[in-house]
């Protein structure tokens, strides 16, 4: 595939972890988009972690006297219909969005990478059957699949992680399988097979180090979609349970009062959009620096 054309992407020998990390760091610094994107994401993570220090308000404490206030010195972004401080809810909101998204993306990528590599390495009937099953899963609209899974198993964070994995694993498998297929015919893989190494060992030592770049770009890109999907789910009332502070849920709650307190809807929208822009910039920058064809991989 396209990854083969760039010398940086596929070194002839598997690289040691330390040098891989150094290489990744150099790439990130060499790309302005990746630097800005990762910086935005880092700021979001910091805000989510430090939320209790940044605001003295409780994000779920109702205060009927203070409902639907505009921006003021006490409440920088105003209050919502229950008198909760909007800024506090936005700051805490990142915890749910980022926490669940990162967990979901990690699980999806982990399963997708292992299955995708295995399909490329084994080939034959395993690959064929897998391709058919994945096509079938892909043909069901992701929102409907999510809704059915969440209805069946309840709305806990772990259920959402599982649901996202079901919906997105097929696409990750396709991408990783494509990238791994370019590595499988290489001489060192044939040599490893001739040495009689196990599939797992070949996968870990020969294939994985050579597709790290594809997997990293896929991670950033997939994370941006996962954040969007989870927020949509919350918006529809199937994600975070009220009164959990969550951006999608906040928009759903405050949408009807948008003419009275526009900031209550706009603040979570801005938070959500900047996080996803950050992830997209990171994905763009990394893919450009590594020569991974992001758009085609994504389709």
């Amino acid at each position, binding site marked *: 595939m396209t990854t083969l054309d760039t010398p940086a992407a596929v070194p002839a020998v598997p690289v040691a972890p330390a040098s891989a990390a150094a290489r990744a760091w150099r790439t990130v610094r060499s790309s302005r988009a990746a630097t800005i994107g990762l910086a935005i994401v880092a700021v979001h993570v910091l805000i989510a972690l430090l939320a209790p220090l940044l605001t003295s308000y409780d994000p779920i404490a109702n205060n009927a006297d203070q409902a639907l206030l505009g921006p003021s010195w006490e409440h920088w972004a105003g209050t919502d219909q229950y008198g909760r401080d909007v800024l506090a809810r936005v700051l805490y909101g990142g915890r749910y969005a980022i926490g669940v998204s990162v967990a979901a993306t990690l699980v999806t990528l982990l399963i997708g990478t292992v299955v995708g590599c295995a399909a490329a390495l084994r080939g034959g009937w395993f690959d064929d059957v897998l391709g*058919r*099953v994945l*096509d*079938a*899963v*892909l*043909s*069901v*609209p*992701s*929102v*409907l*699949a999510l*809704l*059915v*899974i969440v*209805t*069946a198993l309840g709305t806990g964070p772990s259920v959402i992680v599982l649901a996202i994995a079901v919906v997105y694993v097929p696409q990750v498998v396709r991408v990783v399988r494509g990238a791994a297929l370019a590595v499988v015919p290489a001489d060192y893989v044939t040599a490893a097979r001739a040495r009689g190494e196990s599939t797992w060992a070949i996968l870990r030592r020969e294939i994985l180090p050579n597709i790290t770049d594809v997997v990293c770009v896929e991670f950033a890109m997939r994370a*941006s979609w996962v954040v*969007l999907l989870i*927020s*949509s789910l919350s*918006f*529809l009332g199937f994600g975070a349970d009220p009164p959990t502070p969550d951006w*999608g849920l906040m*928009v*759903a709650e405050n*949408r009807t009062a*948008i*003419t009275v307190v*526009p900031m209550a*809807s706009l603040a979570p*929208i801005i938070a*959500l*959009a900047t996080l*996803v*822009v950050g*992830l*997209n*910039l990171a994905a*763009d920058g990394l893919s450009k620096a590594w020569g991974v*064809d992001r*758009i*085609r991989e*994504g*389709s």
Partner: protein
Amino acid sequence: MFSFIARRAGAAIGTLFLSSVLVFLAVQALPGDVATQVLGKDATPDAVSALREKLKLDQPAWERYVDWIGGALHGDFGLSLVSGKAVGGEVGMYLGNSALIALVTVLFAVTGSIVLGILAGLYRDRWPDHLISTVSLIGMSVPEFVVATVLVLCFSVALPWFPAVVLYGPEASVGQLMPAVWLPALALAVVMAAYIVRMARTSVIDVMAGEFVTTARLKGLSTWRVVTRHALPSALLPTLHVIALNVAWLAGGVAVVENVFNYPGIGKLMLASVQNRDLPVIQAIALISAVVYVVCNLAADLGAMALNPKLRTRGRTR
């Protein structure tokens, strides 16, 4: 070439069969006894067992699957557990309303994004490219419900041009729904176009760097002619697949946007039927969406084959 088409169609049917099994199994996994749910908690055991028999819940799962899929092939998806009407007709009515949105969305998104993508590709790394790329990055980064909310704020609240919510039921005529179609379609088109613009841009850049474009330029053709005769057809090829995938994505996007506008379409029905555990309706929607997805992908594959002779020959030798 014929065998290529036949193999693709065969694969599509295989995929559909598998997805129908998956859909059936997933919906069966929904918790709670359907009969108890329909009749309420106070129902007598006799009534429950009578309904179970009527719904054929006492038969093994594979028999019910064969029943269901056999009916579905004839357009009979059973009766809705909530309204008691035939699912096929009900889903069809909502689907028609959604098709209206989908049609306008695809028209907006495809024409808009191909024009913008080509512009960005031709003016690579200059201000039109930067502007278009930035806007499409933002378009990719906001969920549909945000675009919809912002559109309502601009064009229903600030400028009262379009209705913010639809007050009609699913039986509304096309004329009644028409004013309400534009904002949902625009919201979906913005998100959808963001992806296609990027795809079209890269294809144009790839194609314009090709040797045949240089030759055409050296022949003295105008830029306009080079773009329309040489760049556009080749650039459309990879874009086609993205468009097909996006049509499938619409089924999900529509669910969110229709709920923002209270538009009586398939997305609203989808959400309501999941909330009410209306299993026959969920199954019907999932199966119909799967058909749409598979047909779109098949069409994109065959379309790509028609545009690119290389794919035809590769299909034959493999």
